[in-house]
């Protein structure tokens, strides 16, 4: 086992346990089940990819972990601490689990540096000046030197995503929750973003909970890939990706990678087709 | 029908609204009756304070001068039986409708013309933009001079109020239609008329609905003031009636309860007509309902 595998090295925090979580929505009298008895184990420092068609209820799961929505029953535990359970259905959002949103949520009215230092300054962990120094350093580290004083609207979408990840890492979180962050990017930019994400991950090991519907992306990035059924959402197949980290783009052309794609394609395809025919509206 | 009603009654939001409105009415009642309770000995310091602030000593400022809700209710009930009150409703409604319908009939084609033809827009729009900042009520005297009867004059001013809004909305709506719709229609072999009928018209419809609803609100504003200015100012026979005039004559006659009755009546009339328009609007744009 090499040092980039979860459990190895220094990562001891950010283990997330999802136990038998159920989430139903009450719409006009009829209850709709979004998440159905879902159980999943995410190791400390692991990249866990959640794959499923749009509108399958993956985001509901993420919202439950992040503390935006209440769950109906079940339990979510992080490092032994119960985030939410049947008794206390809604977790508190906090800087130990930071969400990177689908369409990006950099504040357009703050420049990139102000965005990056937002977390520590708001929590009062760092003085403004220290935060600025740390923010500059982290931005430079992620190849973002030179855009500190631009507004997010002025830089390319790829850069915006990176700024957002840096903003999250400034808080030294236990886990990053990514909600299809690269959906709107074209395929080439996306590939760059994947490598950039891995690079950042190798430097700052955190648990990553990553939602996507792109299988290739999932296998390229993840230690573990969970393929979900479409509404209600439940793991259909959980796959451990036995390709060694650190990875780079040469992985995409290896035999093992193609085998893994082959292996899972069927399951994903089936679910996608189900959603496709049902004509679920996206988003 | 019963199901939504039950849900409404069981929702806390509804009851919070009820609480707030009831509280508002009670405070209003108390404030309006301040002349009575402030006469008590214990409120002497308050009276002194008001006096020191340069306000009237014997009742609460502002709200104390307003008639109390119970008195208003009494006046309203009294007035309900009078033909004159309903006559005012009819007159105002008539003026609003005539002005509004004229604004629709002229404003929609005018807006569409500006949207379709570059030349028309080049000639017409700057003049329109120059005239627009002049508040419609400033037109009242000029309108009275121009039109042979006061009736027409008031209708004209109401027309102006709605006209600007409708034109701006139609123009904006037509301009914001995605150019791809035109290109798609063109390449499938549509004629100019066909594009107008099947693309521009339905594409602009939502903005027309919005513009008319806003225009309707303005129309009520304008009609009230126009009735006050022309009727209240000159007391000429032709402007008799109308809710605005009802308010003004109540003021002149000193029956303040009736002022509030008139205000509430106009509120109801304005709200009802806007709602009616919105309902009509939903009916003509079914594709917006389904989202």
């Amino acid at each position, binding site marked *: 086992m090499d040092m980039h595998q979860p459990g190895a090295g220094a990562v001891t925090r950010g283990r997330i346990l999802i136990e038998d979580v159920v989430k139903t929505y009450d719409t006009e009298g009829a209850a709709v089940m979004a998440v159905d008895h879902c159980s999943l184990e995410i190791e400390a420092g692991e990249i866990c990819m959640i794959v499923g068609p749009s509108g399958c209820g993956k985001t509901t799961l993420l919202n439950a972990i992040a503390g*935006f929505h209440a769950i109906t029953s079940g339990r979510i535990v992080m490092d032994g601490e119960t985030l939410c359970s049947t008794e206390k259905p809604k977790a508190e959002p*906090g800087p130990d*689990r*930071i*969400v990177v949103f*689908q369409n990006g*949520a950099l*504040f*357009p*009215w*703050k*420049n990139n540096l102000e965005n990056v230092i*937002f977390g520590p300054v*708001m*929590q009062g962990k760092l003085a403004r000046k220290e935060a600025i120094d740390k923010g500059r350093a982290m931005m*430079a580290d992620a190849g973002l*030197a030179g855009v500190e004083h631009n*507004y997010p*609207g*002025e830089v390319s979408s790829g850069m915006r995503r990176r700024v957002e990840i840096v*903003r*999250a890492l400034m*808080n030294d979180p236990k886990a990053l929750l990514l909600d299809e962050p690269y959906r709107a990017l074209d395929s080439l930019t996306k590939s760059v973003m994947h490598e950039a994400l891995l690079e950042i991950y190798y430097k700052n090991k955190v648990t990553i909970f990553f939602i996507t519907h792109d299988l290739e992306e999932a296998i390229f990035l993840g230690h573990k890939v969970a393929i979900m059924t479409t509404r209600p959402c439940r793991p259909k197949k959980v796959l451990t990706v036995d390709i060694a980290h650190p990875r780079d783009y040469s992985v995409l052309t290896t035999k093992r990678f193609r085998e893994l794609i082959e292996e899972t394609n069927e399951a994903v395809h089936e679910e996608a087709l189900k959603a496709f025919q049902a004509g679920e509206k996206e988003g | 029908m019963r199901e939504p009603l039950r849900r409404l009654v069981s929702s806390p939001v509804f009851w*919070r609204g009820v*609480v*707030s*409105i009831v509280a508002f009415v009670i405070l209003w009642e108390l404030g309006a009756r301040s002349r009575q309770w402030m006469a008590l000995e214990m409120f002497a310091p308050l009276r002194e304070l008001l006096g020191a602030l340069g306000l009237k000593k014997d009742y609460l400022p502002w709200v104390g*001068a*307003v008639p109390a809700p119970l008195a208003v209710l009494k006046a309203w009930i009294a007035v309900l039986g009078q033909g004159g009150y309903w006559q005012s409703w009819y007159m105002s409604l008539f003026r609003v409708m005539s002005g509004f319908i004229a604004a629709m009939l002229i404003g929609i084609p005018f807006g569409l013309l500006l949207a379709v033809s570059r*030349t028309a827009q080049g*000639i*017409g729009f700057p*003049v329109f933009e120059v*005239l627009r*900042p*002049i508040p*419609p*009520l*400033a*037109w*009242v*005297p*000029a309108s*009275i*001079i*121009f039109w042979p009867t006061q009736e027409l004059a008031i209708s004209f001013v109401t027309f102006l109020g709605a006209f600007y809004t409708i034109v701006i909305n139609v123009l904006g709506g037509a301009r914001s239609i995605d150019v791809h719709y035109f290109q798609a229609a063109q390449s499938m072999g549509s004629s100019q008329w066909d594009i107008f009928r099947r693309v521009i018209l339905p594409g602009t419809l939502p903005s027309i609905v919005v513009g008319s609803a806003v225009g309707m609100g303005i129309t009520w*504003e304008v009609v*009230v*003031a126009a009735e*006050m*200015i022309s009727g209240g*100012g000159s007391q000429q026979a032709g402007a008799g009636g109308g809710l605005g005039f009802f308010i*003004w004559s*109540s003021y002149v006659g000193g029956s*303040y309860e009736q*002022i509030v009755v008139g*205000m509430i009546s106009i*509120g109801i009339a*304005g709200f009802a007509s*806007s709602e009616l328009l919105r309902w009509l609007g939903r009916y003509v744009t079914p594709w917006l309902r389904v989202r």
Partner: protein
Amino acid sequence: MQIAQNVAPGELTAVLREAIPFVDASDALLQRVAALGRCRRYAAGERIYDAGDAADDIYVVVSGRVEHVFGPGISAQESLKRMGRGGVFGWAGLLLGQTRRFASATALEPSEILCIATEELVKALESEPLEGSSVMELFATMIQRDFTVPALLAKVRRLSGTPLTEEMSSLSLTLFRMSLWLTSPRPYLMLIGFALFLGFWYLFVEVWKLPRFREMPGISAVVKEWLSPAPTYGLSLYTAEYYQHIAVSIWRVAQAFFLATLLGVPFGLFLGWSRRFKEYVFPVFELLRPIPVLAWVPLAIVMFIATESAVIYLAFLASFFATALNTMLGVESIDESYVRAANCLGASRWQVFRHVIVPGALPFVFTGLQISIGVSWFSLVAAEMVSGQYGLGYVINTSFMMVRYPTIVIGMATLGVVGYTTSAMVRVAGDYMMEWRVRELALAER
């Protein structure tokens, strides 16, 4: 420093291929460039050049490591850069108007370095203009991105024979827009429009004297009156009274507007921010809103006794509703993920309000303020016409009573101008406060 001899030509092209500017170059070009180069060997710690030296050669690292430190005044983001094989430095001579070194370079370990005379390199590139310009552009990219030199400095020289990409200065852009506007039919159509409007006014009223129009004030009468130092009806550009009326109206609107903003913006923010507050307060707000502001006129007179406060109250009321409602909509339109992101980042409820809700609602607030100043004029005029002394509404109404018809039009036109100006001022203030939005919109336009 000593000249090295033992490097094979094939090795040099391989090194060049690894240097960013040459990654796309053809083999033929690489061989030519390699042939221009001489290989030198530097000892560890040996200085290769200093800032301010003549920028005559370009260097490519063949082996070893080199440290590159910018001199003062370059304002590169990172002043220090270390590079290994394939690293390119000493490129200052390629930049527009540069003949001196920007930086100093030192070998960190025993290093072999390929030196190419700048002018010869440029000549070689010029002989292949298409490929050459691509190499030069890559140089610019590298200087800007890898050496973090500001874009302003990192402009490479133009190879003769390749077209220059023209950067438009803002002045020439303005001139260009002007010329576009002048060559389009728009200004002429506009003139036609005004000519038609004014012409018909003149003809209908003063020349043909059509029925009904006959009674109206004619344009020439209005203009004459307006510009006359001794106006027949007592009001023109030359009378102090004219300005007094304007000042009174503006002062009233200003009071009403500021009061409405002061109360309406916080009120709207709280309405949008706190669901509970909205549930309790909004029903009353909605109950009062359908009553036209102008229906308040008599009641306002009763309430305020003094007409001055009654007039201001009416203008205020109209503004307040518009401002509060738009601010509330603004808060409600803020994408929920901004609030969630702030929560994730550990912001307290008050911090969310201060850093997310307020700036996020600002665009809507300013839309509201523009509407608010418009309706405030609207109801001011009505209030002034019904009651009150002085003010433009009063001018219009009394002129009507006293049969001073041209003055009515003067009043109306003045109202139009003043109303337009105030709303333009609100817009400019909004642009000033929302720089991020202005910049974003400017980018979208391009």
